[in-house]
């Protein structure tokens, strides 16, 4: 069974995404190979978006000495891979945090046998699990015996890209240039940005998140074929939020949920977790990861401060006022509010996933191609999936 099939089946059986990965690794490692090929391509490529998919695409284009540029809407690279540097004594992943595969995937993404480096990771196998039912706690420590995956020990997903993928790309990235129009009616593709700057290329790879594509921030000339736009619209991507709160004391278990334990882990996720678990740190940092309908009520509150206050209210109720008593500082990352991300990650496919992905990745008139986490069949919704889709789009263009 492939990882994708396994995820689909398990979700259908009600096993939630975060709890899947150690079963997934039991299915064997997915083939993740940076493509190798011959090419005589000599044109220019523009990549829209400097998230994991866009950076991976740039990394491969660089390897094949292709003339390319990456146009990014925001002022930083990384997209949903983002780091809070000076929050505590270890870097915090504000977006992707877990390595949802064997850590060997990091070597596979880089694909450079000449590199002389190691990365330390931790086995993320929380030992204490609890569920809060509104009145009392129940213990679910048995889960430590079947849930486990990996995290970086001293760095982050952002740090990984910063050190191993991005260095050679930095002068190719143009920041603060949201693309608003893509004209692919002529021989060359012409991109127009919000500031009315124009860029021309022979081929374009769009890595904007599904939700951005759905919100018509980018208009296409000619319009997207109906098959393409309905395929894009059939992928769901909803709210996403991460919050980290530092406390003087660790008064919480390694991982806890609100509601019925197994039910909370299936479907939409809302998980509180000890973000300092097995990190080299003396600090106490509680993380909240929540997406989709569980995140929506927080997002609806509007401001980061209102979201934080609501969470503190909930924690105080659960821990008899200890949250306010031991509070030091916090950081809120509202992914739904990011204008060029607009949510968490692709979740559900209305129709057959493979057909939907194939329709989108077929591209437009051999000039405009699509990549991004939602377009990886084997590693959807993950960083490595985003990279894989970026590599595949480049291979399509160059071969």
């Amino acid at each position, binding site marked *: 069974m492939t990882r994708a099939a396994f995820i689909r089946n398990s979700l259908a059986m009600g096993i939630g995404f975060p709890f899947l990965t*150690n079963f997934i690794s039991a299915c064997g490692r997915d083939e993740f190979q940076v493509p190798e090929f011959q090419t005589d391509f000599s044109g220019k490529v523009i990549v829209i978006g400097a998230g994991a998919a866009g950076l991976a695409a740039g990394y491969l284009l660089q390897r094949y000495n292709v003339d390319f540029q990456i146009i990014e809407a925001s002022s930083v690279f990384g997209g949903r891979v983002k780091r809070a540097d000076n929050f505590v004594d270890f870097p915090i992943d504000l977006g992707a945090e877990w390595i949802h595969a064997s850590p060997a995937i990091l070597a596979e993404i880089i694909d450079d046998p000449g590199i002389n*480096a*190691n*990365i*330390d990771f931790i*086995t993320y196998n929380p030992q204490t699990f609890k569920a809060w039912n509104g009145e009392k706690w129940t213990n679910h420590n048995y889960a430590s015996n*079947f849930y*486990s995956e990996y995290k970086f020990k001293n760095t982050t997903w952002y740090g990984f890209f910063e050190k191993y993928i991005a260095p050679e790309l930095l002068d190719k990235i143009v920041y603060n240039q949201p693309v608003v129009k893509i004209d692919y009616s002529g021989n060359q593709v012409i991109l127009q940005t919000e500031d009315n700057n124009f860029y021309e290329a022979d081929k374009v790879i769009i890595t904007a998140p599904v939700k951005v594509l759905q919100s018509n921030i980018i208009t296409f000339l000619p319009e997207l074929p109906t098959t393409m736009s309905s395929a894009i619209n059939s992928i769901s991507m909803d709210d996403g939020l991460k919050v980290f709160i530092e406390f003087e004391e660790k008064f919480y278990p390694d991982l806890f949920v609100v509601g019925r334990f197994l039910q909370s882990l299936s479907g939409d996720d809302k998980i509180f977790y000890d973000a300092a678990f097995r990190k080299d740190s003396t600090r106490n940092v509680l993380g909240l990861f929540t997406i989709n309908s569980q995140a929506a009520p927080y997002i609806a509150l509007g401001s980061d401060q209102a979201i934080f206050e609501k969470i503190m209210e909930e924690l105080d109720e659960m821990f008899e006022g200890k949250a306010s008593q031991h509070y030091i500082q916090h950081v809120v990352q509202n992914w739904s509010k990011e204008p060029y991300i607009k949510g968490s990650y692709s979740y559900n496919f209305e129709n057959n996933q493979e057909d939907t992905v194939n329709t989108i990745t077929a591209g437009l008139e051999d000039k405009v191609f699509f990549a991004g986490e939602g377009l990886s069949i084997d590693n959807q919704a993950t960083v490595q999936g985003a990279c894989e889709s970026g590599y595949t789009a480049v291979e399509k263009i160059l071969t």
Partner: protein
Amino acid sequence: MNKNPIVDEYLEKKMKSPFYLIVFLCFLTNLPLKGQNTKMPVSIGYFAPYGVQYGAKAGISIPWKNWESDRKEDQIRSYNLTLDPQIGYFVFPEVQNNFFLNMELAIRSHKNEKRFSPMASAGLGYLLGLQKQEGSVNLATGEIDFETTALHYFVPTVSLGFNIKPKKSMGYYFKGFFGRKIIRGLEGSTIIGAEAGITFNINQKN
């Protein structure tokens, strides 16, 4: 939580395959039987804590007490109380290798001369868990070096199941078990699983 890389490496490398462990255990369990006259069935089982971990164990049943009751007409029910020392190995893939010693007090009963007998047992075990808590990946090759930490648990369990007694030489058993993994200084956790295996009499002199 102390680390002993030499022990870890030995156990990891030499005893990786449960198969070798079983052979080793059979040898061990066979030793004390030589020259004895009592039936001491040896059992070898496959078991799966939580359904996702798996391993093997071997043990012997040392008879302690036998008695019979004949409350119903033409039905004699016999009971055997045994002490079952066991040794085993199981793995939580990619996370923890576990080695354990266990002592169970088991009661089996069977009607007349039927081979089927329900059984119940209570046990107490020591479990050494070698947990891969962190590691390092070589970015050129993808090779992973894990650092393991030794964890020591006490594991009281209760089990319910049944035996099909050996006819000539081989019988079968199945049981479900439930217990707690208790560890000093940390919160324990429930252990639950199922076990199936074969039993055979090595010594048939009796």
